[in-house]
């Protein structure tokens, strides 16, 4: 049996990275993610982890080194936060197009200006269309588990895609929680060594990322699309296998909490799901029929699983810790995708978004109560007064 430890999200990530026996780690400092590199560099220096640790001259180089290392067949770990994530933007499509299963930790941070360092999901969500598997963890335990789970999904021969392993900066990255550390033999059983198909090798030279003709473009894009779609059944299979080996059973895509008789739900990703659970228990005591739907993967977006889950409710409040200025419905990035998922559902809930936790603010109990009050009104009246509410600015 494994042991239990109090670890921050970053400590949990570093422990999982070590147990996954990664070959190449590339770093560049930016808070809050940077703590993981402090821990990993110590592990390498102490001889606990046999990996190449490369300190790059910026995030663009950091990701490019990871790309090369992965192309040569290495299991690769990297990470960033906020504007560090966006500085490396150019490299994301080449890495997924090259089908290199690099894993990148994103501990969310607001984008500038000004130099706020709190958690907001826009840094990672801005990269959602680059062909990377993407999802959020809520607790250090889930961070630990996702790190192993993402490698297994990304390295699957049917998928072979890089992964953004995201969690909220500070709320998850810096607040310790109990983490069950499994035996190394369990990790080895779950995550066998990476088997690259066409590794860069001087003995058998191949060309990666060649110039192509326009006529070759459609097939390569369709193949990358198919890889992302193939990730859906692979995710279900991997989550099952994870439960069998480690005894923790996750919902593959959509986790529900107190939804059995719920009339309306909070729809959420990431750390704020943790406080939402507390708020829901509190609201339930007052007789409010509210539940929680937490999405575990943003890419691939689980259209069918969401449709099945959300169709049961009268109203859905999408809680957005991100911004997309000028997007459809004028709120955040998630609500339009939630609406699109339900477009062809025979029965669908009314949907409103709630912009909350921006700038790295917590979402308070009062704010959750406000959301519940608005959703109750929507559910009872069958009408949406406003598609978007900005928490803290509403009358």
């Amino acid at each position: 049996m494994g042991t239990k430890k109090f670890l921050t999200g970053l400590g949990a990530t570093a422990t999982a990275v070590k147990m996954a026996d990664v070959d190449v780690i590339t770093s560049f400092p930016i808070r809050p993610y940077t703590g993981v590199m402090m821990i990993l560099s110590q592990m390498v220096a102490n001889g606990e982890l046999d990996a190449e640790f490369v300190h790059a001259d910026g995030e663009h180089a950091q990701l490019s080194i990871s790309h090369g290392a992965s192309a040569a067949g290495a299991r690769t770990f990297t990470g960033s936060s906020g504007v560090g994530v966006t500085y490396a933007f150019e490299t994301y499509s080449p890495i997924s197009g090259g089908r290199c299963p690099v894993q990148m930790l994103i501990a969310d941070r607001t984008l500038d200006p000004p130099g706020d360092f709190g958690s907001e999901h826009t840094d990672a969500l801005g990269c959602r269309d680059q062909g990377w598997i993407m999802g959020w963890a809520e607790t250090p335990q889930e961070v630990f588990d996702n790190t192993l789970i993402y490698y297994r999904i990304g390295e699957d021969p049917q998928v072979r895609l890089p992964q953004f392993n995201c969690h909220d900066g500070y709320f998850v990255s810096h607040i310790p929680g109990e983490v069950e550390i499994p035996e190394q033999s369990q990790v080895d059983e779950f995550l066998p060594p990476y088997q690259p198909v066409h590794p860069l090798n001087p003995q058998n030279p191949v060309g990666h990322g060649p110039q192509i003709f326009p006529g070759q473009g459609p097939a390569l894009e369709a193949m990358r699309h198919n890889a992302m779609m193939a990730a859906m059944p692979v995710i279900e299979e991997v989550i099952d296998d994870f439960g069998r080996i480690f005894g923790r059973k996750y919902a593959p895509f959509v986790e529900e909490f107190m939804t059995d008789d719920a009339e309306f739900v909070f729809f959420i990703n990431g750390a704020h799901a943790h406080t939402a659970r507390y708020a829901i228990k509190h609201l339930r005591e007052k007789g409010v029929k509210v539940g929680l739907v937490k999405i575990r993967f943003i890419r691939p977006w689980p259209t069918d699983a969401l449709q099945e889950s959300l169709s049961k409710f009268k109203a859905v409040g999408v809680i957005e810790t991100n911004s997309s200025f000028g997007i459809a419905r004028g709120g955040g990035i998630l609500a339009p995708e939630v609406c699109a998922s339900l477009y062809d559902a025979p029965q669908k809930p009314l949907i409103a978004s709630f912009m909350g936790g921006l700038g790295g603010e917590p979402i308070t109990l009062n704010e959750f109560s406000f959301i519940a009050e608005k959703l109750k009104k929507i559910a009872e009246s069958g009408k949406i007064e406003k598609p978007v509410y900005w928490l803290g600015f509403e009358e």
Partner: protein
Amino acid sequence: MKSYEVKIQKEKLLPEAGIVEAPPPNGEQESMITGCWRVLRPVIDHEKCTMCKSCWIFCPDQAVEIIEEEITFKLKYCKGCGICANVCPVGAIERVPELDFEDGVVRLEKLF
């Protein structure tokens, strides 16, 4: 679960990630014939040529060959960039529009 997979016909499939085998030592990659990119074709005046081989050294695409002690251009791969004409110290290489040739690269039915 609904299928969101795109059915790709066999003849349209490419190797994963478009990965290509390394070209043979002569640099001729059959899956990437670039001669059709050319607008201006290099033409050499052998009377002027001193066989200094600057063009052979500077060609970035290994498209200059020396056959029987004469400079020859591999037109299947020469992109017509003109570096050879630029580095020639005696002006022996002229760049002639493809339109002037009967077999010129102007409108190819098939690119490769």
